[in-house]
């Protein structure tokens, strides 16, 4: 007795159609972004600031003023140091009241501090967040418990107060490095939590089981099966982290525990402009505009990146 199976006579190669229903996700993220004028503008501004930071010494040579150079001829000593004239041919964005230092040069060098700190902090938090998130999510159990408790502790900790305390207590020689470390220590749990959650769901997927069944080691599974599937999440988190850290650096500089003068930074310029806001509003407007536009650009770009890599909104 045999039990008949329907369709046993179907030739073996009749079902070879391609099912191209799922859209190709990763093909052209950058191209799609560039086609969107808003995203393109944001990207252009970010690239501009990055170039400014990278080529600061060259740019300053062209504009003619060093960021540390006092120009007594540009300020009125009798009036308490009010600048004589605003934007001009020699001082493109005016001068600092009181000292006569060139604002354009300080903005250019300030971009260095902001971008350096924000980008290194992002690299460090991403590294920590992804590694610990993967470990906690993949191994679970005791590893997960330890990492999760540490994350909860860090997230519940009053980070800003701690940063101010630590940064003002420690010697100010290497403030920039210290800033990166402190920001990263408190920043990584936010990414790690998301990575952990996604890893937990990814490791239940059958392709992970299939990889284990084909003899893959644990590190192979984590780094070649799970990590690539986290790509879009990490990309989005990174674009949102950078503006956050730019803001944090500016805020800490504003509070006097950031980048040490005379090294210029945008937050510090905003802080020192407070005393002059009624007489020289331009001194506040210039760094404020640069900072606001940069944060906005990163935020908008992050949002656009998310909608491009995640068309179904399944973040």
């Amino acid at each position, binding site marked *: 007795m045999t039990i008949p199976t*329907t*369709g046993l006579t*179907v030739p073996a190669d009749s*079902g070879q159609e391609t099912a191209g229903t799922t859209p190709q996700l990763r093909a052209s993220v950058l191209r799609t972004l560039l086609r969107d004028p808003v995203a393109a503008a944001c990207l252009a501004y970010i690239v501009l600031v990055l170039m400014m930071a990278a080529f600061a010494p060259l740019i300053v040579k062209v504009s003619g003023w060093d960021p540390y150079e006092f120009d007594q001829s540009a300020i009125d000593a009798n009036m308490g140091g009010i600048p004589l004239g605003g934007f001009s041919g020699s001082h493109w964005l005016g001068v600092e009241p009181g000292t006569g230092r060139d604002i354009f040069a300080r903005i250019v060098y300030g971009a260095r501090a902001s971008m350096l700190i924000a980008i290194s902090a992002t690299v460090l938090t991403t590294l920590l967040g992804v590694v610990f998130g993967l470990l906690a999510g993949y191994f679970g159990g005791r590893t997960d418990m330890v990492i999760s408790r540490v994350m909860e502790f860090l997230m519940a900790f009053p980070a800003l107060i701690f940063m101010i305390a630590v940064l003002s207590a420690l010697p100010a020689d290497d403030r920039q490095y210290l800033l990166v470390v402190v920001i990263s220590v408190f920043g990584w749990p936010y990414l790690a939590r998301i990575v952990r959650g996604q890893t937990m769901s990814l490791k239940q997927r059958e392709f992970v089981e*299939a990889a284990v*069944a084909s003899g893959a080691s644990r590190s192979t599974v984590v780094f070649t099966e799970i990590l690539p599937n986290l790509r879009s999440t990490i990309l989005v988190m990174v674009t949102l982290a950078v503006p956050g850290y730019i803001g944090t650096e500016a805020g800490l500089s504003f509070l006097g525990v950031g980048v040490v003068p005379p090294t210029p930074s945008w937050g510090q310029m905003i802080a020192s402009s407070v005393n002059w806001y009624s007489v020289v509003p331009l001194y506040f407007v210039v760094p404020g505009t640069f900072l606001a536009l940069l944060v906005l650009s990163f935020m908008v770009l992050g949002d656009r990146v998310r909608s491009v890599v995640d068309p179904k909104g399944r973040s």
Partner: protein
Amino acid sequence: MTLLQAKGLTVTFGATNVVDGIDFEVRPGGTLGIVGESGSGKSMTSLAIMGLLPSSATRAGSIDFAGTELTKVTERQMRAIRGDRIAMVFQDPLSSLNPYYTVGTQIAEAYRSHRSGVSRKAARAAAIEAMDRVHIKDAGKRVDDYPHQFSGGMRQRVMIAMALSTEPELIIADEPTTALDVTVQAQILDLLAEVRRDTGAALILITHDLAVVSEVADDLIVMRHGRVVETGTAEQIFSDPQAPYTQALLDAVPRIDDSIGDLRPVPGGPA
């Protein structure tokens, strides 16, 4: 001469034996069908062979694979056996493939992980050859396609190609046709039979579908509640079932040449 011999194989979760002291053997190049309803312990049996049981489960008894006692080997030794000498084909070919890599990469990586010193180029050639062997047209071109560009049946062919690439002695197919529609099922079964003939690999076919095993299997074990209720050659069991449960199972299958009546369910669920 046996390739794989299980004796008193038991899998326990807490106080429950989901597989309860079963014995079976697979001859080299032979096909063993394991049939049973949901919860009968079929899949746990295959995971026990592969050493992939969840950590909350314990395994007892012995599994002898070509002279190696699989319950005694270290994790490292087991990893070398998995995918190389024993390969597995899973139920759902969509979720068994990583959506982020081309199928060629996935086959090549599976191959390379067991053949140290094989160049990427050679692994790619092996991947194309394996895809050719499972009758994927234009294998040289399709090797660079992503899983979502394949249909369900084609994905299962890719999974079989991946299992084949290392020329294993034993292929365990756990419900390989359940996620596929009936016409494709037949093709995949034909393919499994063909692969077995060509490579001489033995096959353990796990299924709840009697029609599936009737086509392919030489020997059969029928499982229920973690126990073997009947063992024998496929022919024997289909023509003259001894256990009342096997009888009931066969009666529950609709027949195309039978008058239409109500289907008969098998009484009793998993313990």
